[in-house]
Every structure is written in structure tokens, then in C-alpha cells.
């Protein structure tokens, strides 16, 4: 026997030895049937409490921000994330990471003030309060605070606010929110007004003096105060507006100024000397310097925080979630307990029925009953990775949230096959075929298998159609698509059903968000009525009731599983909390421990 063969055989032998000798410990944990008591030293079993968001008063709107416990001012904090921010111009901001960054360099009329953990108030940011409605909610008046300045020391005036809203009509603004523009003019607002650059003003934004600004909407909007809290409505200086270029060189009204920015690599912030903490009830702005690193993958970031070595001790991440395969390690390590942040997503996720194809409500209900929610949860990493909501509206972003459970998911999260069979027997077709379209992602393959398995037990034939990930959303949002069931998500823009229901059950169009193609005159009329209700509390309650009513009378969706984010931060970072609405670590309370 020659050498080559001998060494090759040795490899085989060594490998077989490894096989025999390998001894991996078991994975401790309660039986999967008892999700409440998870793992020996895993995450606290306490149930997640959704945040309370209330309306603040003028007194609440006074600065400075309520400091988190043990706060220390000064120092340098590092933020590590995967993606750089593509936009700095407030009018172009819709994405949560960008909106979060905007908190550091720009301000708006209103914003959310953290009172305590899980307790938030909508307060005036630049304005003295969250806005005063009159004329039944059609007219909204804001008064600016004294002493609010741009980074060059010039005062922020009502003219700047008016300008900031007007420029959102300009053709080059394409990404930001659209609510206020539509309320001021028309659904197709870009046709109604071309923007301020041609010298034309919008008549229904009035500035009686330098401190007062009045918005006159076409219809009542009780939640306008919430709309102005979106980062997209943060302000831009009229005198220094550089149009398209502003996206790269913003002028700061917030506590920091961008000192340097290398695209996709790093960003550094220094203090803005003209920002006065006493005017700002929202931003703590405790560190002196912010350094941001981009281009790191979530697994890498998680491993860095677990190791907690050297400079990473003063680092945190905005958005890098612990990947599912690191979850047991991260949640099982007791020493990480005080560096863990956990929050379920604020998005509503649904498996939409295509109502044009699945016409029998009995079949839709049967699928809801048979739905293997628990198995999907298991496939995606268990109860610590995925929550199982039962309502259309998300608990994190609904003021006045009331849970309900129409399809017995609390009692039988693994699906009630008998009940489903019974409903199918009563339906028009006891053995229907359902075309389930799914995004061709590695995580979706096992989920699809689980769904197929469960529905087939109930006698439903499932055709699992894999769609290319690049064109997935385009394919399912075609109104004439050939699928029966598909996943989609939508996030509220502020904590109210008014930014969810009228969108996902609103106008049907190609590429639109009404993917179940629900078109019911009763529901549409009801949604219009609630939207224009001047009493915001009554409206919130009505949205919650409508949520249940829609699932009861139409059943256009199977409510999908909801991801739970688990994030880590360095041991010397204090005040890190996930903003439950934006699902991202807020910079407002961050400080560096000495």
C-alpha cells in the first residue's frame, strides 16, 4: 500500500472515530407542549407586555427628557449594523433604521416621549404640545417653542415648518410618508400642487406669525398629532434647502451634527452646540460622540456582543437581530441576561386569502382552524423567536388593543383538524385545492412543508408554489394573480388602526396593499366613518371592533406568526431599549457607563 492511500484511509478511520467518540450534550428545555417554562436558564418567562401610548400635555412637552436610571453624560458610543442609511433628507425617510437615525440630527413638530419602560406619550417636540384641533378635527394649530435653533444658530420658524411640508410635494421626493399631503389636498397630491420651488405656496398651511402654524385639512383627522411624529415630517430649513443635495448634506436641528460619513462603512457624529436640552422632551443625547460601523452581518454582531471584548463593550446595534440559530445560546446564557433586549415586531403579518379565488368563507375558516401555528413557530425557532398573535391589528402599535381568539388558537395552537374537517364538509368543496405561494427563502421552505403537512391532514390539497425572492411581492400584489394564499406584512405608521385597516383592506390595485382583494361596501363605509371620527379614543375602540368583525364575517386572512427580536449590546452601554413601535433600539436613552 502506498502513502497516499494510507493517509486517505487514516482520514476515513479518524472520521469514523470522530463519529463514535462524538458526544454532544442534549438541549435542555421543557417539553415543547409547555412553552411558559422554557429552558433551564433561558429568557424570563414573564409574558410580554405591549406598550401603553397616551397623549401628553403641554407640561409633558417641556424639556429635558426623563433620564434613564444611572445615566452618565459624555463618552463615545459605537453603533454596529449591517446597512448604512440611504437617506438623510427627512422627506425621504420611511424606513425604521433611517427614522431612528433621524432622531439624532433632526426634529419635528411632535414625537414620542419615554416616560418609563413600555410607557410612552405623544408630546410636542418643536411644538409646545401635540397640537390643538379645532373645527371638528379639520384644523390643527401648533405653536413653536422658544429657543429652538438650527445648527448655525438661526431660529427655527413656522416658515420652515410650512416649507418642510410643502417641499414634500416636489417631484424628487419619492420615499416619505403621504398622509399629511393627501389630507391637505387630494389622494393624488402631486398633481394638486407641484411643490414650493416654483414660488407657489399651499394656501391651507397658514403662518400667522413666526411661532404659529395652522394646518387646514379637507376632512377631520383626529390623529394628525401622531402623523407629524413620523420622521418623514421632520423639518428642513427654508434658507438652506439644497433640494436633491439635501439628502447628502442635511442641516441639523437635533442634538448632533454629522462630522464624517463614508458610505456603507462608517459615520461619526459630534454635538450640535445650538441644540438646547431644555427645549427637547424626547432626546437625552447623553454620549458626546457617536461612531457607527456598517457592513457587519447579524451573526457577526451577535458573536461580538457575546464576546464583549474591548471596544465592543461600548457598542450596541440599532437593528441587528440575533439570528434564530444563535437564539438558544444567547437566551440560555444567564450572564447575558442584563444585556438582552426582547420585543415582538410591531408589524402585522398575514397569510392573505385571495378572495377572488377562495370564495367560500367556510373553506377560509377551515384553513384558519387547521392552521399549524405552533408547528410554524417550532420551525422558525420556537416561542422565543416567534409569537402567535390572533388579531389583525398588532398589540404594539394599537392604542386600546383588545385581544380576541376566533379560531381557538390559544387552546389548540397546533391546529384543530377535526373542526376544520367538519367545516369543510359543510362547505361547497370538502376537498379543495389551495395554491400557496411562498417566497423562495431558506427559512420559508420548512414553513411551507409544515403548512402543507397540516392542511393535507384536513383534506386540503396544497400546491406549494415557490416564487423568486426578487419578484415575490410584485407577483402576489398583482390583482389577477393565480394564487389562493400568500404571506404579506404591513406596519402601522402610528399607533392606530387608521394606518392599517384602510391600507390592507383599502383600494385594490396592482402593486397595492389590499392583497386579499376584500371589497365590501359595509366595511369600506365603516372604515371611512372611523377615520373621520374626531374622538380618537372612540376611533381606536372602533378599529379594534372592526378587526374582529372582519375576521368573523369575511375571514380574509390567516393571522401569521410574529417575529420576536432579541438584541444584545455591550456591557458598558446603558439605557438600551427596543422602541416597541419602530422595533429598533432607540438612541434617545443610550449612555456610556464609565
Amino acid at each position, binding site marked *: 500500500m502506498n502513502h497516499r492511500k494510507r493517509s*486517505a484511509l487514516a482520514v*476515513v478511520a479518524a472520521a469514523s472515530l470522530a463519529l463514535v467518540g462524538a458526544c*454532544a450534550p442534549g*438541549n435542555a428545555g421543557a*417539553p415543547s*407542549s409547555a412553552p411558559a417554562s422554557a*429552558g433551564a436558564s433561558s429568557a424570563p418567562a414573564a409574558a410580554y407586555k405591549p406598550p401603553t401610548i397616551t397623549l401628553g400635555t403641554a407640561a409633558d412637552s417641556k424639556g429635558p427628557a426623563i433620564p434613564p436610571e444611572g445615566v452618565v453624560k459624555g463618552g463615545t458610543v459605537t453603533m454596529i449594523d449591517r446597512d448604512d442609511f440611504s437617506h438623510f433628507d427627512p422627506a425621504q425617510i420611511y424606513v425604521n433604521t433611517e427614522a431612528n437615525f433621524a432622531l439624532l440630527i433632526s426634529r419635528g413638530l411632535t414625537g414620542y416621549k419615554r416616560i418609563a419602560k413600555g410607557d410612552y406619550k405623544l408630546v410636542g417636540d418643536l411644538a409646545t404640545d401635540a397640537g390643538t384641533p379645532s373645527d371638528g378635527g379639520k384644523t390643527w394649530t401648533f405653536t413653536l417653542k422658544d429657543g429652538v435653533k438650527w445648527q448655525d444658530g438661526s431660529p427655527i420658524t413656522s416658515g420652515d415648518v410650512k416649507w418642510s411640508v410643502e417641499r414634500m410635494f416636489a417631484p424628487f421626493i419619492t420615499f416619505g410618508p403621504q398622509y399629511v399631503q393627501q389630507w391637505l389636498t387630494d389622494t393624488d397630491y402631486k398633481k394638486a400642487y407641484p411643490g414650493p420651488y416654483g414660488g407657489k405656496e399651499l394656501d391651507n398651511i397658514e403662518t400667522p406669525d413666526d411661532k404659529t402654524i395652522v394646518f387646514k385639512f379637507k376632512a377631520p383627522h383626529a390623529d394628525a398629532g401622531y402623523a407629524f411624529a413620523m420622521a418623514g415630517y421632520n423639518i428642513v430649513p427654508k434658507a438652506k434647502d439644497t433640494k436633491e443635495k439635501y439628502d447628502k448634506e442635511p442641516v441639523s436641528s437635533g442634538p448632533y451634527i454629522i462630522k464624517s460619513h463614508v458610505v456603507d462603512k462608517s459615520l461619526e457624529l459630534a454635538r450640535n452646540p445650538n441644540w438646547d436640552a431644555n427645549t427637547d422632551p424626547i432626546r437625552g443625547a447623553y454620549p458626546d460622540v457617536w461612531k457607527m460601523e456598517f457592513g457587519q452581518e447579524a451573526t457577526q454582531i451577535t458573536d461580538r456582543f457575546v464576546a464583549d471584548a474591548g471596544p465592543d463593550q461600548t457598542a450596541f446595534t440599532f437593528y441587528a437581530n440575533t439570528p434564530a440559530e444563535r437564539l438558544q445560546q444567547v437566551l440560555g446564557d444567564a450572564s447575558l441576561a442584563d444585556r438582552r433586549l426582547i420585543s415582538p415586531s410591531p408589524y402585522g403579518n398575514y397569510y392573505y386569502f385571495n378572495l377572488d379565488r377562495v370564495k367560500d368563507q367556510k373553506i377560509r375558516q377551515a384553513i384558519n382552524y387547521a392552521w399549524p401555528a405552533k408547528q410554524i413557530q*417550532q420551525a422558525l425557532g420556537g416561542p*422565543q423567536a416567534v409569537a402567535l398573535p390572533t388579531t389583525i391589528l398588532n398589540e404594539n402599535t394599537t392604542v386600546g388593543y383588545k385581544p380576541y381568539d376566533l379560531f381557538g388558537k390559544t387552546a389548540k395552537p397546533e391546529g384543530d383538524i377535526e373542526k376544520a374537517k367538519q367545516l369543510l364538509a359543510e362547505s361547497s368543496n370538502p376537498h379543495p385545492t389551495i395554491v400557496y405561494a411562498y417566497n423562495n427563502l431558506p427559512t420559508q421552505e*420548512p414553513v411551507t412543508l409544515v403548512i402543507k403537512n397540516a392542511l393535507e391532514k384536513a383534506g386540503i390539497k396544497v400546491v406549494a408554489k415557490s416564487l423568486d425572492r426578487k419578484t415575490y411581492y410584485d407577483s402576489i400584489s398583482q390583482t389577477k394573480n393565480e394564487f389562493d394564499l400568500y404571506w404579506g406584512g404591513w406596519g402601522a405608521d402610528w399607533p392606530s388602526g387608521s394606518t392599517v385597516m384602510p391600507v390592507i383592506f383599502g383600494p385594490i390595485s396592482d402593486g397595492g396593499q389590499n392583497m386579499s382583494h376584500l371589497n365590501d361596501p359595509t366595511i369600506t363605509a365603516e372604515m371611512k366613518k372611523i377615520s373621520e371620527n374626531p374622538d380618537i379614543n372612540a376611533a381606536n375602540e372602533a378599529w379594534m371592533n372592526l378587526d374582529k368583525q372582519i375576521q368573523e364575517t369575511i375571514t380574509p386572512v390567516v393571522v401569521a406568526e410574529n417575529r420576536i427580536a432579541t438584541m444584545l449590546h455591550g456591557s458598558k452601554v446603558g439605557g438600551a431599549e427596543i422602541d416597541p413601535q419602530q422595533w429598533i433600539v432607540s438612541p434617545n436613552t443610550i449612555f456610556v457607563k464609565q
Partner: protein
Amino acid sequence: MTTPTSTAPEIDATSVTEAPEAVGRSPGQLMWLRFRRDRTGVISAAIVIFFFLVAILAPVISMVYGKDPYTLYGQDRPGLLNDFGYAMAPNGGISSEFWFGIEPNLGRDVFMQLVYGIRTSLLIAVVATILTTLIGIVVGIIAGYAGGKTDFFIGRIIDLMLSFPQVLFIIAFTPVVDQLLVPSNEETPVWLRAVTLTILLTVFGWAGLARLLRGQVLSMREREFVEAAKVTGASPARIVFKELLPNLWTPILIQSTLLLPALVTAEAALSFLGVGMGEQVPDWGRMFLRATQVYQNDITYLIFPGVALLIFVIAFNLLGDSVRDAFDPKIKR
């Protein structure tokens, strides 16, 4: 076999022919004789045959073992997987019931996944090897024998195929095939994916063999026995099949035994990259993919497909080496 091996058990294979009481043996018989004396070769052959048997007998094994590769045991039965979806018993859930443990999250039986996974890998690899070899033989001989412009033209195609980034192409092309051939409301059938993979692996696999055979044919084309055949008026077909091909069997056989394990790995690699078989078909490459994600919590799940693939590829490669040694004892390494 007519010749008892005991007649010359201690003598080196090459010297057998020179022995005075030599019995006439065909090259095939000689090869067999030499091969049987190569212990590595025999062991590898046994392993390879074992793998093939497992693949063929998978349904029988499943019946005896009492499990199938499709049922999600871990999900249907509480107490097998913990909250995070990992096996609760040590070693990835190995027990008298689940011999090789259970798959994380979905909870399928790992042993059955492995056994049926061999089928997927071997089926695709064997078909692709046969097709590759056939195309390689035909193209190689044509190029070598015809020469001139044909040779030049085929040579350039071979260059192109060899320089093509095949993995990237397959990743990009597979979804296109699905899009083209599958109606928008139909599932991609398992056979279509298998056929696509086989064809694509074949398309990118034949060039190497063809180039090798072309070289061999070129060197033989001007030899005396071919010249003699030409002079006696043999048709090109006769020359190719009766004169050239018998002399090419050695490289063909060696190449294809080495090609098969390469294709098994290629198929696993493609599944690993996400363009292999779907989730419902047991597949080694996909097991690997999942295992690399969960290895920190369930190292056992990485070991089984890893070791199985390692043993199979090494055994097949050693078999290829032994076959070459047996055919061509003059090469001393």
C-alpha cells in the same frame, strides 16, 4: 473465471504473463486479478456497493426500521424537541427509536433522511455520469479522429465550457427553468428539478472527458494498426468502434469512476446553495446547509451527513485509483 488464482498467488501481476506455464488471459481478466489483490480497492468497492445497496433498498430499510423520511416526528410528538426546536435527548436526539437522532426544528428522522438522501444524490449523479461519459466519448472521438476544422471548432466549444462559471450559471438558470416550464399556479414537480440538475451537470461536465479522449485519439490516429485498418478499406465507423474505442476503455472507466463522486459533491453543493431539491425531498446537501446553521447547538446533525459524504467520496475516489492501477500497472506512484 477459469484460472484458479492459487496458481500464482505470490507473484506480481505483471510477471504472471511471463511465467512459463502462463495461461492466456484477456486484459479484463488481468485487470480483475490485479484489482483483487489491491486491498484498498476491494474495501472501497465494498463500501461503494454498500452505499448503492442502501440506496436501492431504502424502502425496505424504511419498512424494517418503521419510520419514513417525511413524517415530522419532532412536531407531532411532544417531548422530542425543545422550545428552540432542538432535540432534547443528548447527541442530537439519538435513541433506540431514532438511531441517528432527529432533525432540528422540523423533527424528521435523520437516519431515514440519510438513507433516502443517498437515493437523491446517487440517482442524479449516476445519470449525469452516464450522460457525461457518453457525450464525452462521442465528442472526444469525433474531434480527435476528424481533426482539422471540426477539431478546431469542437476544441473552442470545450474551452468555452471549461471556462464557464458553472455554479453561478446553474444558480441563475434553475429559477428561469422553473419559470418557463411550470405554469404559474403549479408546484415545481420534483422530477423537473432532478432533470434540470442532471442536464445542467451533464452540460458542464462532458468537456473534460472529451478533451482527454481527443488527445488519446490524436495520438492513436497515426498508429500502424489504424493505418492498416484504413488500408484494408475499413469504414470510419469500424475504425472508431473496433480499433480506437477498445483502446480508450481504460481512461473512460477511470474518468467516470472519478466523475461520479465529484458529481455527488456537486449536487450536494448545489443543494447547499439553495438550488437543489426542495424541502420535501431528502437531500444531503440541504442537510449540510441546515447543519452549518445549527452546529453550535446540535453538532451531531452535522456529523452524520458530513461523515457519510466523506466516506462515500473517499471510497469512490480510492476505487477510481485502484481501477486505474489495475488497468495500468506500469504507473508507479
